[in-house]
């Protein structure tokens, strides 16, 4: 047994060296037209050696370590508590959400412009993640091309404003509905595919849309994107220093305050906040409705659901379309916030980030998703020196989540209907 362990541990350590040393320890450097090889610095080499030793020791004492790891959760006082009773959980969540929203409302007036801008981005991701959570978390459909609907929303606004001068407020429902329509049309043929095929096909769709945006230069400007997307207005009041469109008034003049570029940023933030709250409330409501139960039923046992007359296509399609709708929402806000969009913003990596938010945060509640969105967007900004490790950490975190806490993702706990005792 011990010899077996030793052999295995040695093997694992050697594998660690093989997969780490050539890639990490030997760097390809371009020197003119020539490519040369340079050894990495001592720190890297030592770390690789250390990693191998750690793997060796871990594998050698694997059984002991795993056994003691198994004991740790019992030290955690929260581990053994009863799951919160549903009514209480619901109330708790509602209170937490309301507090969160109140804090979010007051917050922009106390912080810097950059933070507000970042917070708007967080809210956009919150919308995206809540929408994707309907598709992935509730309906159990892995959509890897979610960013395509985001793009549809953003481009709808950009194109409509460019060609027809349509304002943000009109573009918002239009963009969302068009994204939903895209979801409907794309979803209709593909939703009968099995889960993993569906994932790949949606990924393909996302890429196709991006490539089309990139190449239909006559319409979308290709890789150069579309600029000059107008800011939202408040009842016909513009937030710029000068009025761009005739008939509008300007915010600072109406209220007789000094012009500040911060007004616009805060206003956009507030719009994003309202829309994010709207998204959360609507989706919460859906989960309590028949449609929400059907999503769960189909996810749990598709065959049984079909045998009861639930149409697989229409149930899945409803989730897909609703998810796409909110992506379109987020896209419109994004276009307005940036003022400029290009296909660069809608690559697969973006889908992966949104998925990572859902996976990391889907701890059975919308709060989880919201917190994850905050973490995923803000943490790399806080630790800028680590920001290049962001995607590395995401990837690792996704794997770890699946291995240790997949519940985070799949059973987002829907609020159960309870039968009240009739006396």
């Amino acid at each position, binding site marked *: 047994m011990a010899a077996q362990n030793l052999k295995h541990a040695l093997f694992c350590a050697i594998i660690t060296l093989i997969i780490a040393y050539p890639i990490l320890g030997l760097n390809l450097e371009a020197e003119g037209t020539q490519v040369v090889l340079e050894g990495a610095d001592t720190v890297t080499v030592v770390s690789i050696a250390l990693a191998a030793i750690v793997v060796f020791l871990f594998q050698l004492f694997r059984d002991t370590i795993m056994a003691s790891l198994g004991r740790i959760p019992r030290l955690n006082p929260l581990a053994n508590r009863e799951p919160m009773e549903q009514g209480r959980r619901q109330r708790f969540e509602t209170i937490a959400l309301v507090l969160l929203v109140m804090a979010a409302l007051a917050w922009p007036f106390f912080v810097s412009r950059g933070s507000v801008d970042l917070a708007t981005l967080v809210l956009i991701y919150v919308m995206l993640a809540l929408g994707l959570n309907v598709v992935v978390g509730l309906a159990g459909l892995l959509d890897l091309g979610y960013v395509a609907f985001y793009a549809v929303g953003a481009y709808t606004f950009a194109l409509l404003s460019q060609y027809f001068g349509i304002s943000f407020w009109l573009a918002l429902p239009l963009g969302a509905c068009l994204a939903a329509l895209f979801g409907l049309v794309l979803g209709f043929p593909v939703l009968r595919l099995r889960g993993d095929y569906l994932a790949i096909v949606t990924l393909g769709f996302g890429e196709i849309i991006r490539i089309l945006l990139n190449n239909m230069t006559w319409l979308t400007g290709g890789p150069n994107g579309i600029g000059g997307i107008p800011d939202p207005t408040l009842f016909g009041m513009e937030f710029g220093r000068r009025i761009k469109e005739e008939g509008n008034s300007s915010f600072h003049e109406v209220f007789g305050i000094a012009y500040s570029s911060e007004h616009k940023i805060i206003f956009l933030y507030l719009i994003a906040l309202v829309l994010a709250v709207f998204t959360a409330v609507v989706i919460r409501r859906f989960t309590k409705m028949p449609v929400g139960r059907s999503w*769960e*039923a189909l996810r*749990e*046992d598709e065959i049984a659901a*079909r045998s009861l007359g639930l*149409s697989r296509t229409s149930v899945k399609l409803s989730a897909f379309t609703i998810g796409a709708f909110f992506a379109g929402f987020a896209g419109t806000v994004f276009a307005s916030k940036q003022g400029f969009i290009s296909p660069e913003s809608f690559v697969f990596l973006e889908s992966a980030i949104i998925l990572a938010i859902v996976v990391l945060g889907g701890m059975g509640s919308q709060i989880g998703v919201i917190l994850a969105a905050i973490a995923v967007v803000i943490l790399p900004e806080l630790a800028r020196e680590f920001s290049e490790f962001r995607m590395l950490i995401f990837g690792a975190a996704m794997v770890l989540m699946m291995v240790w806490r997949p519940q985070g993702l799949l059973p987002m706990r829907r609020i*159960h*209907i309870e*039968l009240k005792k009739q006396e």
Partner: protein
Amino acid sequence: MLEVRNLSMRFGGLLAVDQVSLDVQEHEIVSIIGPNGAGKTTVFNCMSGFYRPTGGEILFNDQPIHGKPDYKISRLGLVRTFQHVRLFNKMTVVENLLVAQHRHLNTNLIAGLLGSPNYRKREQKALDRATYWLDRVGLLELANREAGNLAYGQQRRLEIARCMVTEPRLLMLDEPAAGLNPAETRDLNQLIISLKEDYNVSVVLIEHDMSLVMEISDRINVINQGRPLASGTPEEVRQNDDVIKAYLGET
């Protein structure tokens, strides 16, 4: 009301069902029996639309239904249970019954969001029907439990209740007594008869428990190795030589 004519189902080289015919009248309990692997469940899978039969036809109220998608067949009033109970385990008992009533969910998305009176009335009605059937199968006390936590016999009853809330015309039960103890089997027996008598539902039954089959069936079809062997009243089947040789003699 249901007529199956020369049904055949082939999987690659294997002819699992070969020229099986059966018919079910209103207000009737018809059983399909046969040794394991005889193709009984395959017949069910064809009837409920999970498989597209490779030959023959299935008529429901003179309408051909073979090849229709499963959910449409179910909406016509042909609803089934499964050999291995298939509940929505993470949902509560009452939710299992609510889901079964959600066939036309897309029409009320907006109404549901706004909570229109019509929508609320419909939800209440669904809840009432669920309550009624839970009471009927004796699971009312457990209404808010997760379905997966029920005892096996309770799960079986819940599955039947889940079919009944859809108000079917024809109920297809795939080995409903499997895994039940004698007392539970007796209750089941009563329940099936009552479905026919009180709710005017016809029943097609696949069952191995001979005493149950003989007691409640109006007619019995025997299948062996995918082919029809005999059919008739319980009495006729019991005395059929082929059946005795091929089926009863074997066990």
